[in-house]
């Protein structure tokens, strides 16, 4: 199984990755900037994401909304920001490829002349509403912030959520926006991938025409930081919820590092889907939880595994904690079964095939090529990525669980209904989140 491509680097440092797939007359244009909230500093959080919004408000040669011409050409488009990167994409009919490249290159090369105080303050309001909608006014919405803050120390860039602190967002000044753009939004810090109905040579020529003359900026410094948990951190947070929910989180190996794939499969076999051990025990047999899930959240310079379970009415989070730790201990002691390893292998293979179905959007082929290029420096990593999952054995998975899902080095967060601190696991102290 392969994802074929060609890669070129323009004179200004822009990586260009091209993948031909002529089945449908569409092209995915996918542009990654290697900047995310981990490039922010304490007191200035939420910046990378706010900036993503500003990228849709017009640039020097098209100082109107970004959506209109592209939607008028039949495109879908979006962008997203996480801790490590910001991506922008359009999926256009192949006759409108040049339009998409014009638009993307104009905002890469000529954003600042069109960036006004009015646009800036409008989008800050929009982002504050995004924060209200997705965090503050959503049940359990602040849990992720509390976990990150407890897992990573205050000077570690994964300490804060990408959406940022309200006070920081309110304090941002326009000149900071300019400096941020100059530092991170330039060809040498970006990777452009085109996938779909293109001729690779022709497409490269057009890309060079639009992007080749944009000046490169300074090489961005690599961010480095480390985190460790010396003991158990036990927190509780009140929320407007009916049922209490328990979160367990551990620091784990970074994306693509040794143990990362093992923990991906381990979290699946522990808590994802009806075949998982914890679903069977907590939801199906004992019926003490209404749901359970887990994930290995792989990031560029670190990661964390998270396990979540909601208590059934009348059940306590302490009961859930006990059962969850028992099941983790069982995997740590005995490893998974052969059947579980085989199932994980088959599912990984199927997932990789499913990932080949679409050229664009979040997670499409263009996005995957950029992910591998930006994080590994090699778009061809698709094949080797699957091999990582095939290489997982009973012993390696057992060792990863024993080593990283350590019961004595974890963050435990109870989210309880307002005023019901008594429902939290014992020895919890109130968490503080923005």
């Amino acid at each position: 199984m392969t994802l074929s491509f060609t890669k070129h680097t323009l004179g200004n440092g822009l990586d260009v990755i091209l993948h031909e797939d002529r089945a449908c007359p569409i092209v995915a244009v996918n542009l990654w900037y290697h900047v995310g909230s981990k490039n922010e500093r304490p007191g200035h959080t939420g910046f990378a994401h706010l900036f993503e919004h500003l990228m849709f408000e017009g640039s020097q040669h098209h100082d109107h909304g970004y959506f209109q011409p592209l939607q008028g050409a039949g495109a879908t488009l979006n962008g997203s920001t996480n801790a490590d990167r910001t991506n922008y994409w359009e999926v256009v009919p192949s006759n409108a490829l040049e339009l998409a490249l014009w638009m993307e290159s104009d905002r890469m090369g000529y954003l600042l002349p069109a960036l006004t105080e009015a646009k800036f303050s409008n989008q800050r309001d929009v982002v504050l509403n995004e924060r209200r909608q997705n965090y503050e006014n959503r049940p359990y919405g602040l849990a992720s912030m509390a976990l990150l803050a407890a897992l990573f120390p205050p000077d570690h860039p994964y300490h804060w959520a990408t959406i940022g602190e309200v006070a920081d967002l309110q304090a941002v000044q326009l000149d900071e926006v300019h400096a941020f753009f100059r530092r991170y939004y330039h060809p040498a810090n970006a990777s452009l991938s085109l996938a779909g109905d293109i001729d690779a040579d022709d497409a490269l020529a057009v890309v060079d025409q639009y992007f080749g003359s944009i000046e490169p900026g300074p090489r961005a410094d690599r961010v480095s930081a480390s985190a460790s948990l010396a003991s158990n951190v036990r927190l509780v947070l009140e929320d407007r919820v009916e049922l209490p929910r328990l979160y367990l989180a551990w620091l784990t190996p970074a994306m693509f590092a040794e143990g990362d794939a093992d923990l991906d499969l381990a979290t699946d076999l522990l808590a994802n889907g009806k075949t998982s051990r914890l679903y069977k025990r907590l939801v199906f047999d004992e019926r003490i939880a209404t749901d359970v899930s887990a994930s290995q959240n792989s990031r560029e310079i670190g990661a964390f595994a998270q396990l979540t379970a909601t208590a059934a009415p009348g059940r306590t989070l302490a009961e859930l904690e006990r059962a969850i730790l028992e099941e983790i201990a069982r995997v740590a002691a005995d490893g998974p079964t052969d059947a579980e390893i085989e199932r994980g292998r088959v599912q990984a293979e199927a997932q990789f095939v499913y990932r080949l179905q679409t050229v664009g959007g979040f997670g499409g082929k263009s996005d995957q090529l950029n992910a591998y290029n930006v994080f590994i420096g090699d778009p061809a990593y698709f094949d080797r990525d699957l091999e990582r999952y095939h290489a997982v054995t009973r012993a390696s998975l057992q060792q990863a669980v024993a080593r990283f899902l350590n019961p004595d080095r974890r963050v435990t967060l109870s989210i309880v209904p307002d005023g019901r601190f008594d429902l939290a696991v014992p020895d919890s102290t109130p968490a503080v989140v923005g």
Partner: protein
Amino acid sequence: MTLRSVAVDRSRLPEPGPSKTFAFPAIRKSTLDSGLGVWSVYHPQVPVVSLMLLVRCGAAADPPGKDGLAAITADMLDEGSGDRSAIDIHEALANLGAQFDTDIGSDAIVVSTTALSRFTDRVLGLMADVVVRPALRDGDFARVRQLRLHRLMQLRDIPSAVADRAFLKLLYGTHPYGHAPIGSEAALREMTADDVRAFHASAIRPSVSTLIAVGDCAHDDVVRFAKAAFGDWDVNGARRLQPSGEDTDSLALHSEDAVSASLPTRLAVIARPRAPQSELRIGHVAVPRSTPDYHALLVANAILGGQFVSRVNLKLREEKGFTYGARTAFEFRRMPGPFVLQVGVQTAATAEAIQESLRELSDIRGDRPATSAELALGMAALTRGYARNFETADQIARGVMQLALYDLPDDYFAAFVPAVERVTVDDISRVMQHHLDPARLTTLVVGDIDAIGQDLGRLNLGAPVTLPADSF
């Protein structure tokens, strides 16, 4: 190759070239003796198959007093078959890397699986096991019902879910579309495993079902596998059980005028103290999928609130900064579905957001009719990128499913773009005047009423009706 950077013309945007022709998927159809339709599209780009079993019977067929019966029946399908448990079934699916899902709407239940195409026959076998021969055991029912009661409890925490459910009730009352598929706590508590077994026997039948297979699998193979898997699905020999003694077909086909004609509530509120945002829903019962105005309504809605560059989103988000996003939709169903404007706005802006929304809904009908530029944009957004809806097996299967659910012709996809391109600005005004009636609009607010009550009083929508949060 040698690259040479040349100056590019930034004085104008490049015009897209001529559209490429695109061959829409050809649908092949067979019917098994039982009446089960087997439709397929050969789509071999990736060795994947998307299998969907559409049952044209959904939450609107819930018998009176049993809101949620269709949904819990659908949910029970994969809880075991024969002597196999839910876990056994899911292990069998997982061992094939298959992704299984059950979905329920007002008009249909859909059981779908995406799988590697080499497993098509085995996956169809498993799908038949759960759809045709589900165990529907008492013990599993008790557990699943309990989980759904917990889910209902949790939905009360989610402002958008509270708003969605309450709004359906406001618009439809006791009409079959008046409740969300999950139903109500009271109805679920009364329900029994016998209800589920009776509903399964009477409503989930081959004669109202279509199996859709899209992917790297030839039609003849799909039919052969379907016969092997579903061949014995035939309820003629079995005694037909009827929920509440009524025929489910007639329940599913209530006439349009079943929707209450009485004067609607203008303004309703559900209190959510200290909420940082208000969830708003504004709308009324509108049109069925079968309306001849379908294409014109799609374009009109794109202009009004159906895309990022729409009047409502530009006003509330890009001009005012009140929200992360606002949108409108005509929800097309077999019977008249709702028109809804939905948005979450910062608390302090609630009344102004309602006022601006109502103005937009009114203006497009005549005071500020769609311009030719807006028409061109809305039309282009729907037509120029149409081919991208046919890229993956899942997308195509969903598209084909619409044909089966709404009785649309085989050439529907090919006819779509020309039909949209025929829409004129006069059509936009006409369909908006006809299908969007400001006098009938109901506005629902889920938010911090203590903070916004006075502002709401100035809206001229009469005294707000206060609904308790757990009244539905």
